[in-house]
């Protein structure tokens, strides 16, 4: 109180010190994420093709008009939505079932078994694509083809007959462990005595699950769905290797479409307009996720 000015300058100095500590990380992220983001929006309004660099100038909304009328873009959006929703349903439901099994104390060696079940998540996406495309799904020499022949069915050429469904299956194999690990962490956090109390009150296994486990899981399920949506929206490596977006545009998702626009057609303007759509799509989900994380951080501090 005696030296309000001195105190204020001390506070200012403390604030400066804390800014100096956070600053480098914040600036680094700003340069790498926010600046390019602004540039993407800028390019989306420009005429810019790497093959014809002499054509320049303002494009207005023509890049947007062009891609909206491009059937490949529409296919890309639809495929992206189908991919995200299908993979969500599969990974969350199967992941939850797996988590329930590996949360059971009667399973001998459950940690070791869970580690093996979680392994697909650590495999490079590019290897995942190769492994499934060739060793598993190849219609002549693949393992599934051999299995089908053994069962007397003629092998299906999965990647050319049902490309999107195959990609969904491949990605779900890779991502089910993520849902499993997250849900397992939250299942094992449910106190044993609550379940015990339910049992003593005469609740059966299903009732215990429905009225005790599921409500506790609700928040984690919500979080897994949001997070996986963010990650599934940007799937690239598996598609690049397994189908190259084909046949035709049957398994082209939005990231792969943008990649093709930029590096096959060299149309930077159109690719940027597509990228703006991808950003908007991701932001719709990110808003909910950020709100949820924000509430958790505030609760903690």
């Amino acid at each position: 109180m005696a030296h309000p000015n001195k105190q204020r300058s001390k506070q200012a100095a403390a604030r400066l010190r804390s800014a100096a500590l956070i600053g480098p990380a914040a600036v680094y992220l700003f340069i790498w994420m926010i600046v390019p983001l602004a540039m993407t929006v800028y390019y989306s309004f420009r005429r810019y093709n790497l093959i014809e660099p002499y054509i320049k100038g303002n494009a207005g909304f023509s890049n947007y008009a062009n891609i909206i009328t491009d059937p490949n873009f529409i296919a890309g959006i639809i495929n992206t939505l189908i991919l995200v929703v299908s993979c969500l349903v599969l990974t969350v439901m199967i992941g939850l079932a797996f988590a329930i099994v590996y949360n059971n104390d009667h399973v001998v060696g459950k940690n070791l078994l869970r580690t093996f079940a979680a392994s697909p998540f650590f495999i490079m996406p590019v290897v995942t694509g190769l492994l499934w495309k060739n060793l598993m799904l190849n219609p002549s020499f693949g393992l599934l083809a051999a299995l089908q022949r053994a069962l007397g069915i003629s092998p299906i050429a999965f990647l050319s007959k049902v490309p999107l469904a195959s990609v969904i299956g491949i990605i779900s194999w890779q991502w089910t462990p993520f849902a499993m690990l997250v849900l397992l962490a939250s299942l094992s956090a449910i106190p044993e005595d609550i379940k015990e109390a339910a049992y003593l009150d005469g609740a059966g296994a299903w009732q215990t699950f429905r009225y005790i486990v599921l409500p506790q899981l609700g928040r984690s399920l919500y979080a897994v769905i949001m997070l996986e949506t963010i990650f599934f929206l940007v799937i690239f490596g598996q598609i690049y290797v397994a189908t190259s977006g084909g046949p035709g545009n049957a398994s082209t998702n939005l990231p792969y479409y943008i990649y093709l626009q930029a590096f096959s057609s060299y149309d930077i303007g159109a690719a940027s307009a597509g990228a703006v759509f991808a950003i908007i799509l991701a932001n719709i989900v990110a808003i909910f996720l950020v709100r949820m994380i924000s509430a958790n951080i505030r609760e903690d501090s």
Partner: protein
Amino acid sequence: MNRMSWPAKLGMNILAWLIAVLMFFPIFWLLLTSFKTNALAASRTPAFFFSPTIAGYVNAIVDNAYVHYLINSCISAIGSTLICMALAIPAAYSMVFRRSKYTDSTLLWMLSTKMLPPVGVLIPIYIVYKDLHLLDSVWGLVLIFAAMNLPIVVWLLYTYFKDIPEAIIEAADIDGASLLTKLVRILVPLTLPGLLSTGLLAVVLAWNEAFWAINLTNVHGATLAVFVSGFKSARGQYWASMSAASVLSVLPILIAGWFTQRQLVRGLTFGAVK
């Protein structure tokens, strides 16, 4: 849950084994194929028992310059992780022990950049890299991988530093300890397991990264992800080599991944799951 009948217990155990075997089987098959000859790898009847050969590995290492890509993968994964640590340790320290009214929103903003689709920033980064001669350079990957993992590393270190009692830092402040002293004497020793597993997670994520590696590098700066994706049009006659190259690229990181399962959940959920 303690009161299961024995058939239910047996059923649970069988299920647990079945899940593990089925999920791991494709990886096991990859491993098995890598020890076959190329001819056997593409036979119409799957071979489980055969005399193993390391021809596929020899082909990957000797004929396909595996080591070149391995070195690039190591440089980009370890280099980017070091940058992440250097930037994230002071930031997380400040967020925990020098809080201001901007702290939470800064942390939240950093996490939200991880939700941005990489494809949304690909084109400008590609064009700038072209001008700076960073295309097909491993150092270009080091820089972008660091930006990619920085939010996750900041977040994990934030959660680890929060477990340190504030009184310890206050006592050090009263003794007039500098930031460097506090880092070396208090923060790092107290959170060493957390720091190491965070670093390991950053290495795993950078190692497996395909989007930036495929789009920004080709040969000189290319990582193992690019190397392996070169086999994407390989027909049956190269499957053993392809499998050997794949195993060489994923095995070390799979084992590292087994040890980072907990951090992975903590790091990739950004505190959305408590």
